[in-house]
């Protein structure tokens, strides 16, 4: 009996953990485990074997040692805002909740850095640094909730990464607990460290190489001033060209976001940002720096956008208006939630020059699957977030939405891009990994995994598909008899 075996394992492990953790931090009952059954990708749910909530590194080490001895898989979890099922539990795995490790350990304004525990929320770092005139640059839209540990594990981005980089560009050091419960320090107080760049390898590794227990982040001076221009376009292609024109002009905006008509209308109805609802697309272009620099740059931006065919360019008159311009963009996901019972957020990156074509293809797929799609786009770095609108209660719609989403990701690969720009592969995009990587490269990933985790106990089954899985996935594709995207030219 499988269930009784699981039940026995649960009790056995709970007893062993009780040597190290107070009972209230070992969650066994179903109703205690229920809140951990999914992350931000709520279509996938599973109850964990057991949840443990350690309060310090030593407790984490103890938990890891027990799990290693018992050969029980471990899945780390921060705030559970991940959008790819990275923190999705397994019924045979311990869920390691890191939310109690939420202290800022040191803030060093002289050296522009902060050392924090993994459960510290992204925004909390910038709040703590503000009195010193500093902030932490990567700002995922989920920043009030997501944790820095989760950000490291996903290499999270945000709307300002074109200028300020991703998580990986804003770290100095990590303290890792290995699968065996050993401590490992990576990086240091300076910018370079000896040996291979394991800091980069660990960043974005989705909890599969080690548990992040301390993070030293870089801090930057808060820009003196930030200004945003809102430009309306009658044509999506023209908006895409305007982005290229800005870059060609030598402008590196702090943020450069695009919304298509479906998403800007939904956002306008929701937060009344003042968007021009008859526009086919809008661009938000933010510049930051000191006062003089911003005045100089925003004038260049305005001129360039008008020359590129914007039907209208507005600059915010004050901070309140700037916040309003952004409110619409930041509310794009919940706004989609208002016009549809459910939505599914995709996350591909493409070379920007293919934007018009990719949006055309998405529209065609939307028609084919009978599901609406709204697009928001980190236009500066080519990271596309199509939102597929569906009704989970209508039979078959979720499956259709997933298939539609899968097609979009394969399209991104097809034009030379990638299946995930910032949300990670997790459980969600594991099949599309087969479309992006040939077997030799998947094998390389498995070998790296094995170097850190020889028994495959850390977040098993996520992020990197087995070759068997890819063979099956490929077989299904071939059986359906279609060459992928026969209507696209090959290159």
């Amino acid at each position, binding site marked *: 009996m499988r269930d009784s075996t699981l039940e026995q394992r649960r009790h056995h492990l709970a007893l062993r953990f009780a040597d190290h953790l107070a009972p209230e931090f070992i969650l066994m009952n179903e109703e205690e485990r229920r809140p951990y059954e999914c992350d931000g990708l709520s279509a996938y749910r599973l109850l964990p074997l057991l949840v443990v909530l350690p309060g310090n590194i030593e407790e984490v080490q103890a938990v890891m040692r027990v799990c290693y001895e018992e050969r029980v898989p471990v899945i780390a979890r921060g705030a559970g805002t991940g959008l790819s099922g990275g923190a999705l539990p397994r019924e045979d795995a311990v869920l390691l909740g890191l939310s109690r490790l939420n202290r800022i350990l040191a803030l060093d304004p002289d050296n522009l850095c902060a050392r924090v525990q993994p459960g510290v929320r992204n925004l909390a770092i910038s709040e703590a640094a503000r009195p010193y005139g500093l902030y932490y640059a990567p700002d995922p839209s989920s920043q009030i909730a997501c944790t820095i540990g989760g950000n490291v594990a996903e290499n999270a981005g945000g709307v300002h*990464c074109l200028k300020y980089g991703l998580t990986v560009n804003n770290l100095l050091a990590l303290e890792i607990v290995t699968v065996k419960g050993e401590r490992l320090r990576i990086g240091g107080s*300076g*910018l370079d460290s000896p040996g291979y760049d394991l800091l*980069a390898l660990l960043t974005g590794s989705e909890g599969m190489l080690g548990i992040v227990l301390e993070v030293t982040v870089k801090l930057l001076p808060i820009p003196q001033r930030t200004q945003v221009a809102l430009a309306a376009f009658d044509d999506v292609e023209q908006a895409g060209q305007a982005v*290229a024109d800005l870059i060609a002009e030598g402008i590196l905006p702090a943020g450069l976001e695009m919304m298509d008509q479906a998403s800007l209308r939904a956002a306008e109805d929701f937060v009344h940002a003042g968007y021009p609802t008859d526009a086919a697309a809008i661009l938000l272009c933010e510049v930051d720096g000191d006062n003089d620099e911003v005045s100089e740059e925003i004038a260049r931006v305005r001129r360039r956008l008008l020359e590129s065919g914007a039907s209208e360019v507005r600059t915010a008159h004050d901070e309140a208006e700037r916040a309003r311009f952004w409110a619409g963009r930041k509310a794009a996901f919940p706004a989609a939630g208002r016009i549809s019972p459910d939505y599914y957020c995709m996350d591909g*990156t493409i070379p*920007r020059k293919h934007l018009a074509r990719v949006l055309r293809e998405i529209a065609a797929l939307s028609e084919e699957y009978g599901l609406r799609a709204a697009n928001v786009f980190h236009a500066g770095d080519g990271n596309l977030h199509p939102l597929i609108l569906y009704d989970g209660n209508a039979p078959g719609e979720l499956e259709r939405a997933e298939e539609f989403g899968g097609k979009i990701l394969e399209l991104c690969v097809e034009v030379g891009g990638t299946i995930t720009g910032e949300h990670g592969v997790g459980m969600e995009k594991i099949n599309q990994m087969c479309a992006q990587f040939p077997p030799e490269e998947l094998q390389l990933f498995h070998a*790296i995994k094995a170097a*850190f985790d020889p028994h495959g106990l850390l977040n098993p089954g996520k992020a990197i598909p087995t070759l068997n899985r890819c063979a099956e996935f490929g077989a299904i594709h071939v059986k359906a008899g279609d060459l992928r995207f026969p209507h696209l030219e090959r290159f």
Partner: protein
Amino acid sequence: MTDDLTDVLREQVREAGHAGTALRIRGHDSKAFYGEPVDGKPLDLSAHRGIVDYEPTELVLTARAGTPLAEIEALLAEKGQVLAFEAPRFDGRGTLGGAVASGLAGPRRPWGGAPRDLILGVRLLDGRGQVLRVGGQVMKNVAGYDVSRLMAGSLGTLGVLLEISLKVLPAPIETRTLLLELLREAALARLRELARQPCPLSGACHLDGRLYLRLSGAHASVDAWAQRIGGEVPAPGNTFWEHLRDQRLDFFERPGQTLWRLSLAPATPRLACERDSLLDWAGAQRWVFTDHPAEAIREQVAAYDGHAEIFHRGEGETAPFQVLSPILVMLHRRIKERFDPAGILNPGRLGAVC
């Protein structure tokens, strides 16, 4: 000049793999002094060259590893763009592959990043002669482990880099150099103060009682900050930064002496070994000539969670790189084994483990 020698190189690596012959991968050999010496058959990359793809509006450049940095920088300059990591060009030479493999960056590093920050993807030959493509040509990509960044600084011990895609950036509209007569402690204090303001710094170096600052950005902003900071503008301001970048300042001219490179938090106080030193990166990189023994230097640096390496090795000096912790050694071994099972790619260049 453009040439794709992938097939030739693959054959050479395969043959070496079968015969167990060690290979010494080289571009222009401008950094041959750096790292442990490798005893192996030369594998010459300098003829594998050419810019494969460059689209200024995508901010992405892809080039073969043997392409001279000078060629890339000239092309970028035509479009008003730069390699923000300012790769050092020793003796005026250097290939893109060598720049990435050594991971070294010039004076703009704290603000503009290093190769590891700008690398988007690579095509490489592993030790079995397999061509692998990791990463891509887009700016945001979190599919799979970040193997391309792992190549930066690996000194050719994991693979022969064939082709590299990098993020490039617009060149600053205006750049100006300031010079302040300040003793070292006062200079560091001044830098700490500036670092916390949105000052458009792109270089900060202290040498012989002088603080050199470089400002890069919009005209108005550079003007305003130059006035606020004060200090005279030395005549050919840019030459200083070029010379610093390529180690052509008089400070570096000491043939036969050991040159140490310290990597530390910028505000770290002066260490005992630092009597004769140059501060770069606002204090985060320190070039040091000293007669302190290696162990003493490493100890002093470790006390501040930094690290020290020998950049130019003098007569009879010890190993250039710091010894890694046992767990790190194990991880390095396993990673090296996967990429290069026969141990033929630059064996020992990065230290005993790899």
